[in-house]
């Protein structure tokens, strides 16, 4: 059975403080009214219970917004290519306050990163990180994680789960083996080990969380219908007010497209890998001028189909995790939930 601790608010704070003192810790820190995962050295700096609608995804800690791929140097004998410096994110670390949808996003990303070419940097970062997830008490207006193809209640995407029980107690539960070992080592402040009753309480909390969703859909049906709807004319009206601003892809916990750019000063340079977005008008522009997706609705079709059909076909998991970040950040509030549901209607 999984390890469960029962504690209260003060106990949880002590638990967090112990972790922050011991490990390299990342947690949501408020910047311009938005929470972003940053390195913290004190509990006061961060808010592990940050509300989901204003918290950026945890993706940048694993797939940074920009990363050095290689260095190069030109001299009279030619060009020499060398490795970049040590990856600053690859050390042992703990992330506090990760939302379960974000954590699931990483699990989904794993599929593409371990397929064919194995990205060693990403792998190292994943292996060296312990994810502590606080379960949401209430769903946001744009959330729909429970309607998708994964089990939110028993999700093993995070290592340790923290639940603010309805009975006023706080439950710290290990989910994976990594999490169990972590809890065993770092629970000097915790004493009350939970029982069968705690499991019941956690279940009860999930029930109340599940009932708070505004958006619900039948995933299986939508997925099956979408597979045959590549030529649907519905993609045009649903995307009509999109302004192709790319925001959705940049803040999405699972979008993983990137571009490569070389930057040079004098004879030395670096090759960078940074985010890109398929909503960008010239994302698919080829040398020679051909662009297979010049129209907005084609780009939206690609986005929706990739999230709900192609990735599922290829890797068996749905690329969208239902966090609703794209709809919240979108300046014109287009929700991928509305798009797929209207198309598959």
């Amino acid at each position, binding site marked *: 059975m999984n390890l469960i601790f029962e504690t209260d608010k003060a106990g949880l704070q002590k638990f967090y403080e112990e972790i922050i003192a011991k490990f390299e810790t990342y947690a949501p820190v408020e*910047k*311009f*009214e*938005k929470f*972003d995962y940053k390195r913290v050295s004190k509990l006061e700096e961060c808010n592990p219970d940050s509300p989901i609608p204003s918290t*950026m995804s945890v993706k940048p800690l694993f797939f940074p*917004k*920009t990363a050095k791929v290689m260095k190069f140097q030109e001299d009279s004998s030619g060009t020499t290519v060398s490795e970049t410096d040590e990856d600053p994110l690859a050390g042992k670390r703990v992330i506090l306050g990760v939302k379960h949808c974000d954590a699931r996003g990483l699990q989904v990303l794993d599929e593409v990163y371990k397929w064919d070419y194995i990205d060693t940097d990403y792998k190292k970062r994943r292996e060296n990180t312990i994810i502590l997830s606080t379960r949401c008490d209430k769903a946001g*207006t*744009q959330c729909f994680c429970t309607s998708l193809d994964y089990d939110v209640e028993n999700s093993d995407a995070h290592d340790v789960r923290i639940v603010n029980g309805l009975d006023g107690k706080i439950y710290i539960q290990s989910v994976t083996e990594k999490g169990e070992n972590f809890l065993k080592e770092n629970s000097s402040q915790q004493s009350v080990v939970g029982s069968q009753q705690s499991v019941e309480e956690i279940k009860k909390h999930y029930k109340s969380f599940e009932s708070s969703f*505004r958006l619900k859909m039948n995933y299986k049906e939508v997925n099956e219908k979408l597979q045959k709807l590549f030529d649907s004319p519905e993609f045009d009206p649903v995307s*009509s*007010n999109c*302004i*192709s*601003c*790319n*925001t959705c*892809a*940049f*803040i999405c916990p699972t979008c993983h497209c990137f*571009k490569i*750019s070389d*930057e040079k000063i004098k004879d030395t340079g*670096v090759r*960078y890998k*940074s*985010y890109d*977005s398929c909503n*960008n*008008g*010239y994302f698919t522009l080829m040398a020679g001028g051909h662009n297979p997706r010049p129209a*907005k609705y084609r780009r939206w079709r690609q986005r929706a189909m990739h999230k709900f059909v192609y990735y599922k076909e290829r890797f068996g998991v749905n690329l969208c995790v239902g966090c609703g970040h794209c709809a919240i*950040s979108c*300046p*014109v*509030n*287009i929700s991928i939930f509305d798009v797929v549901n209207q198309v598959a209607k």
Partner: protein
Amino acid sequence: MDHSKQIQEIASRLFAENKIDYFVGYRQNSFDDTQVPFLITDPAEIPKLVFTERSVFNLSNYLKPDHTKRKRVGLVVKGCDSRALNLMLTESQVKRENVYIIGICCEGVLNEKGEKAQNCVECVMPDPVVYDEILGTASGKREYIVNADIKELAQKALTERADYFENIFENCIRCNACRHSCPLCYCAKCCIDQETSTLYHGANTSSAGMHALMTWSLHLAGRCVDCRNCEKACPSHLPLHLLHKQNEMVIYENFQQHLAGMEKDDRGAFYKYSLSDPDDFIL
């Protein structure tokens, strides 16, 4: 400020007379009191159109060439939106005969917190400057007020200011939403995206954020109308108006109180000059 009824009437009339192919207005979000832009081709959807003080987004953005492909468009504009549209007309991005403009004498829109937005408090021109039809009562041009945030920042020490802006540029994720949401950024390919240029800075670092935002704001200097579409679009909630308002203030104070898009055929402060422009900073 509720003009929903009148807008619906005008839109149905325009469709009936076959004057437009598209109508751009606002629609209520089903889950809260915010509104989103709404593009209509089918008159059956007209009843969904609304306009209240929650109609925030600048719809002139939908006249950018890649959105409407030179179709005949009817749209709703507030004071600031109409200034942007005026500039687009002057810069030959839109043909006047292709747009049917419903101008609204704006009483100020609300921000996310439900207060009157800062740019509406400091607004110089709440009435539309270009329109075919006008709704509401015009209140006339107001006096220019220097932005409160700019005043506050200007008093800080140089290093303090630099730290503040470094924080901004570091948090920029370079999604370019600011650019895409700006009605006046209509270039087919932005100069900061020219991969072949030696000035290209494609990475996503703090210096690249500074490079992109500074270049962007200086290319919009003398043209920005302070509609704050960029700020609403920014996923990192960066206070992008600081850069624009600073430029606007310098231009207003030094170049004959120039404000962008106020008059017909006025292309912006950098497209004209005066022999008496300040010269004292030049050696």
